């Protein structure tokens, strides 16, 4: 048997690859690349609709996900929303990249660390993981501190209609962008543009 827990974790961490979007050319087959965000999201929703209505069993699903929206849909929705708002000019690129990678890694890290060493150490590992990722990509201490704290806080509430996979992307992003707009945070390096052009 495949270890379903590890399978679930790998599916979560692989979601960091969503950031490959920034290497796409601006136009693909004559369409602006942003249309592919919508196409991808609709595909995910179609798969989820088929799963829920036809009762299709997908490996790695949790028991409680049988009759409610699965976490992969929440995660994909969060990433698509971030990418879409980036294309609309609301969110800076470096924060979008850092937040998607952070959400992909921090949730499994918290889960595994909590399982191994308890709740308190789970939070510490989550903070460390998200801080390192923000620091590695954004390269600004203040953004890294605020981003990591907000991300770990937004992971805590277990709400049926607002999954932590979505919350961990949307909440830190909104807080950081609002603080940036209010000029309470320093300017991002190169205005937050770290990937200049696509392939």
């Amino acid at each position, binding site marked *: 048997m495949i270890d379903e827990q590890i*399978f679930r974790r790998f599916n979560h961490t692989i979601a960091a690859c969503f950031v490959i979007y920034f290497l796409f050319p601006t136009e693909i087959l004559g369409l602006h690349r942003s249309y592919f965000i919508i196409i991808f999201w609709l595909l995910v929703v179609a798969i989820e609709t088929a799963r829920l209505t036809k009762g299709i069993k997908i490996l790695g699903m949790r028991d409680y996900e049988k009759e409610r929206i699965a976490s992969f849909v929440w995660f994909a929705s969060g990433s698509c929303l971030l990418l879409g708002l980036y294309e609309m000019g609301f969110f800076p690129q470096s924060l979008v990249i850092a937040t998607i990678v952070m959400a992909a890694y921090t949730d499994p890290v918290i889960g595994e660390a909590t399982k191994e060493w308890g709740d308190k150490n789970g939070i510490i590992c989550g903070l460390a993981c998200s801080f390192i990722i923000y620091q590695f990509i954004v390269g600004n201490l203040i953004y890294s501190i605020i981003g990591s704290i907000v991300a770990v806080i937004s992971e805590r509430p277990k709400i049926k209609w607002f999954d932590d996979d979505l919350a961990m992307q949307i909440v830190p992003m909104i807080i950081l962008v609002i603080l940036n707009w209010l000029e309470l945070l320093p300017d991002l390096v190169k205005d937050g543009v770290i990937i200049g052009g696509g392939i």
Partner: protein
Amino acid sequence: MSITKLYILALYLVAILCSILFIVKEHYNIAILLILGNAWPGYKLAESLMRKNED
């Protein structure tokens, strides 16, 4: 080969390909994060598949 195994193989390929593309474009920080973040669960998953084959 089952659909699940093909899907897992696709996941490995996605992780490798994305990492290579970021290296080629000289975005080493993102490439390192993609490699490091997926290495542990990827290794554990491969290990669990191997264990199944041994059984």
